[in-house]
């Protein structure tokens, strides 16, 4: 941890953001989007 404090700080902040997202239900919301066909992605909707 003695070098690159900014890199470590970004890693910690990113991990906290991801953990917050899971807590807030974003991973489940992502799953709901990802398990049905995305009409925008395939050029229909």
């Amino acid at each position: 941890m003695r070098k690159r404090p900014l890199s470590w700080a970004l890693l910690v902040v990113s991990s906290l953001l991801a953990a917050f997202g899971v807590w807030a239900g974003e991973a489940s919301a992502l799953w709901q989007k990802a398990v049905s066909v995305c009409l925008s992605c395939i050029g229909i909707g």
Partner: protein
Amino acid sequence: MERGRRRIQIFSLLLANSYWLFPWKDRIFQGWTKRICFPGLNCYSCPAAAFSCPLGGLQNAIAGIRPAFAVHQLHFGAYVLGTIGIFGSLMGRIPCGWFCPFGYLQEWLYRIPVRKFSLPRIFRWGPYLFLLFFVVLLPLFVVDVVGFGSAWFCKFVCPAGTLEAGLPLLAMEPGLRRLAGMLFFSKLAVLFAILAGCVVTNRFFCRTICPLGALFGLFNRVSLLRLRFDSDRCVQCSACRRICPVDISFFDGTDSINSGACIRCMRCYTICPAGAVSIDLYDVRDHTVQEEKGGS
């Protein structure tokens, strides 16, 4: 190292698209792994996709911010941004050079023996503009009456969606084929234009359009894993410049070796005859890396 990178690219391609039961099922994969963002451009509507696309996830989160906040849900893309940040702060754009299935496809297309072209440097702004407008601003501000935006990049540009999801799904589903209209054919035209670009210019899509690469690129200068250039050892042979797939020129001081455009394929590290390029992993000393390079 290049052989190892190829193997990892093939493994990543197969891992990202590891659901091979799709021809016998009437739905795309619905397992728990789709809660995880794959570190590369791989459409989650691809019938074989086993993971989620971070770019699609981010756009949908941004497009749904207003309705989510209206019902007191704190959904603003923290999960996807955090996942991208974890990969980025650890290794910068290594996902682009080593894991991304669409990046691997581009490298194959560039092997087609036709006349090749280099890109003017101004095109390096392209991915940042696509990130700003198509991923953030348009999904956030162009909304319908209930406040939902659209995933603009997925809808109008994304070649991975058309190639991996649009074409196979339309081939398998007659019902979807009947719905294909102008939007689909315009996306098809965009796909072919991008693929043609990739044949004549190395990593054309990464260098001119890819917003995911732009996001990872923001971390190149601050990631734990970085490249280091020792100008005292450099013999100015320009081998690194000639082998670089994204035309970065650090040996003459034009670019930083940790430029946001670098996809970290490590070809410069492998080819440098003077050992002027080293991998710098926070407290690994330079000579240790050089010894490993000599021993491999």
